[in-house]
């Protein structure tokens, strides 16, 4: 019957329309929902933030570092330690948005889109006030406070971490700012325009030449390639490929081995070792120490780099003493040190220990420490450890020595854009760990444009932090 045939045509058309609806609905959910949820005009975000009491942030011992208070309809974020965590926790401002942990963990803090079936059930049965989730950091508030005090009014950064777990114990960048909304909003213009860039978290986003601290990376390659016993006659300076490399103050150390060379921080020795290693081995060892790699971290981390393609001998010589196109963040330097301290194993750096619901009944995340990279074998690491201990025992790092505790370290003085233009503008570095037999803490310190040697200004800071941490645990 032709009529019924035509009716079937119409029905097929209707089927097609319904199929289109179902398909399109699935398409929205699969491919567009993420951008729709994040759309700034989506009031759901604003509403959720207003309705939900934002989660608090604690240090490793449960010390309250950030919390929100509700007065009527308005919520204020309070940072009881003011500037102390501005470069780490960041800020949460209605006008200027969020930064650092406040931004990265926003979804957890306001309990948005958290895929956890237990949490979903819990929320469904909770008709009382909505609360976000709390962050528990790996930071030790006492150590953080001390670190900031030690830097004082100088600019720079301090990173302290546990080499065995990768937990960040303290991370301070200076200059900093007061993240409490009212102060922040009043000072915003000044802060944003300031030539000292207080919004730059130096520990994670500042890139510096590592200077002589980089010699432990070169030493690692030397040990691995059987060059640990090479002796050289250090006459205070050497000309490589037409470029003169001088020791600090032009001192000549005579016939020295690698231990002595590290201890006195001989540029003559390490620039020549780097040339002997050659560009392939230099690139390979820096890559193993994770330079030029994306490292997962809880807050944005600038990539450290070994910025060479084809290296001349002069390039190799510069790289050997941590100058030229070798750029690292203070955190990267702490990680390199922790790999040596931890038998050649670099742990993944971590800042957040766990995330739990505000009432503490349910842990949403419990981060475990994990291996980031196996950098070198334990024998090599032990060898480097030993010569680093000599640096503190009788070399340039004597200011880091602590009575009763064996400390290993390396100083550094890094050239920068002012070198050759203005005197006494170098960055001062110190990296170190203790106790040497069983390393518990790694510290990396940098003081920007300080002009003093790392041994004289940076090492004492590391010393105080290590001593505080090991003696008051």
């Amino acid at each position, binding site marked *: 019957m032709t009529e019924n045939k035509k009716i079937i045509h119409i029905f097929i058309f*209707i089927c097609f329309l*319904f199929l289109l609806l179902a398909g399109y609905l699935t398409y929205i*959910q699969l491919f567009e929902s993420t951008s729709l949820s994040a759309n700034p005009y989506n*009031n759901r975000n604003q509403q959720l933030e207003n309705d939900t009491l934002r989660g608090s942030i604690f240090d490793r011992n449960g010390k309250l570092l950030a919390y929100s208070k509700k007065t009527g309809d308005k919520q204020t974020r309070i940072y009881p330690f003011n500037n102390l965590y501005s470069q780490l926790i960041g800020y949460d401002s209605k006008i200027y948005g969020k930064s650092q942990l406040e931004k990265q963990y926003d979804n957890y803090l306001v309990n948005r889109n958290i895929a956890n079936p237990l949490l979903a059930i819990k929320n469904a049965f909770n008709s009382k006030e909505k609360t976000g989730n709390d962050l528990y950091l790996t930071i030790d508030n006492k150590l953080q406070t001390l670190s900031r005090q030690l830097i004082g009014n100088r600019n720079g950064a301090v990173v302290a971490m546990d080499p065995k777990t990768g937990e960040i114990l303290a991370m301070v960048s200076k200059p900093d700012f007061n993240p409490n909304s009212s102060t922040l909003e009043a000072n915003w213009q000044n802060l944003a325009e300031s030539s000292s860039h207080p919004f730059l978290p130096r520990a994670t986003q500042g890139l510096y030449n590592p200077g002589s601290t980089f010699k432990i990376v070169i030493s690692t390659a030397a040990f691995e390639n059987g060059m640990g016993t090479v002796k050289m006659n250090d006459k205070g300076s050497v000309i490589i490929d037409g470029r003169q490399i001088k020791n600090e103050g032009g001192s000549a150390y005579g016939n020295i081995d690698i231990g002595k060379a590290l201890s006195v921080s001989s540029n003559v020795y390490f620039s020549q070792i780097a040339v002997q290693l050659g560009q392939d081995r230099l690139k390979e060892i820096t890559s193993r120490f994770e330079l030029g790699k994306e490292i997962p971290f809880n807050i944005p981390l600038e990539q450290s780099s070994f910025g060479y393609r084809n290296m001349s001998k002069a390039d190799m010589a510069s790289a050997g003493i941590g100058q030229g196109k070798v750029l690292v963040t203070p955190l990267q330097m702490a990680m390199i040190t922790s790999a040596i301290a931890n038998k050649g194993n670099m742990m993944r750096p971590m800042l957040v220990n766990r995330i739990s619901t505000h009432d503490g009944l349910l842990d949403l995340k419990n981060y475990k420490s994990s291996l980031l990279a196996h950098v070198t074998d334990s024998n090599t690491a032990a060898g480097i450890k030993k010569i680093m201990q000599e640096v503190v025992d009788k070399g340039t790092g004597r200011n880091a020595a602590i009575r009763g505790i064996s400390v290993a370290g390396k100083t550094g003085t890094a050239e920068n854009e002012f070198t050759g233009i203005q005197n006494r503008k170098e960055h001062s570095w110190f990296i170190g760990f203790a106790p040497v037999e069983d390393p518990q803490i790694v510290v990396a310190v940098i003081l920007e444009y300080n002009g003093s040697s790392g041994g004289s200004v940076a090492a004492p800071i590391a010393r105080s932090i290590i001593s505080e941490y090991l003696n008051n645990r």
Partner: protein
Amino acid sequence: MLRLLNYKHPVNLLVAVDIIAFGLLCYHNSSKAFDWKTLLAGVIISVLFCITYLIIVKKGMGDEYLFLIVAMLSSLGFIMIYRLDNEAGFRQFIWLLLGISLFFLSYFAFIKIKTWSKFIYFYIGASFLLYILTLVLGTDIGGSKNWIIVGGFRFQPSEIIKVLFILFLACYFKDPDSLRFPLNKPKFLNTRLGRSLFLMAAVYMNVAFLFLQGEWGTVLLFLLVFLAEVYVFDKGKVLMLVNSAAIIICAAAGYFLVYHIKVRFDIWLNPWADISGKGYQIAQSLFAIAAGGFFGTGIGSGRPDLIPAVNTDFIFSAISEEMGIFGGMAVILLFFILAYRGFKIVMKVEDKFNKALALGIAVQIGIQTFIIIGGVTKLVPLTGITLPFISYGGSSLVTSFILLGLLQALSSGKAQRSGGVDKLDRE
């Protein structure tokens, strides 16, 4: 009694859904004290649906699934409306009672009264009278001047006209060649061309009035139902081609000449350009659907209140937010099964008038669902129209139940209209 409790019995599925949904609703509303009103509404609705279903089965009223599907849709709609606005939910409950009564009324009236196919001029006349009334007495609610308020009681005439329009089309296509006009002048009126022109004039008069009221969705719906009827029942191809071409040309002209149509299209193409203004509604709807995810936020846990007109045009977005894409998909599938049952009836019915009427109803349900769900998901340009059986609003709900009553009667096989055609000829 035991047989009734069997889980394989489809009505029990409906009851289970109602129990779960109203239970959740009780919990959602009862932050202070236990909410007896919600529970009572849930019990009454479930019992009412069960009784209606039992009557349909026991009395042999034809397709027993039609009402079950609609009951499920109405339950979902009622739950959503009640959750959004308790008072609106209560009114919807009253409308639902009236709708079910009218379902039975239209069922029995259609079977008892054998002369439905003879009132072609009445259907046109009543439609036009309602249009004129709307134009004269109409009140502007929500942007369209398509409401009539009589003594505090307001209704949307265009909803009732949906029924009249389908009845008119069925009357015409019952046997177009034997249609005689009361007037004999001019002569060409009673030729084939004359009759076609009469049909088109009647349809486009409807369209013109709806156009004046700004009911773009209903315009689209009427035109598509009309085309479907022409496609199936018109023997030639000319009428179909002429009308399709005319509609496409008018749509194109409308885009360039009518500001409102252009705006709808532009919003559809890029709602983000004017997100705080004209694109606001559709953006909010999409945000809601995205917020729901696959399983939804749960009844009472989402923020569908942020969507404008959420009770009526955008109820599907609210369902998607709180019951998830799976909830939305369930609604789409229920409408699909409803359309499928409708088409089955269309195929089975022998009588021409009944067949055309059933086709009109089935196509209307399918197309209306597509227009509004496609609209709120930005698949097609958004035109304000209700989602049958789900959206808040008495006129829409009552009309949908009247159409359902007719479909039910058609499925029962008790509505044979023997010799109706000849009788009309002699008049």
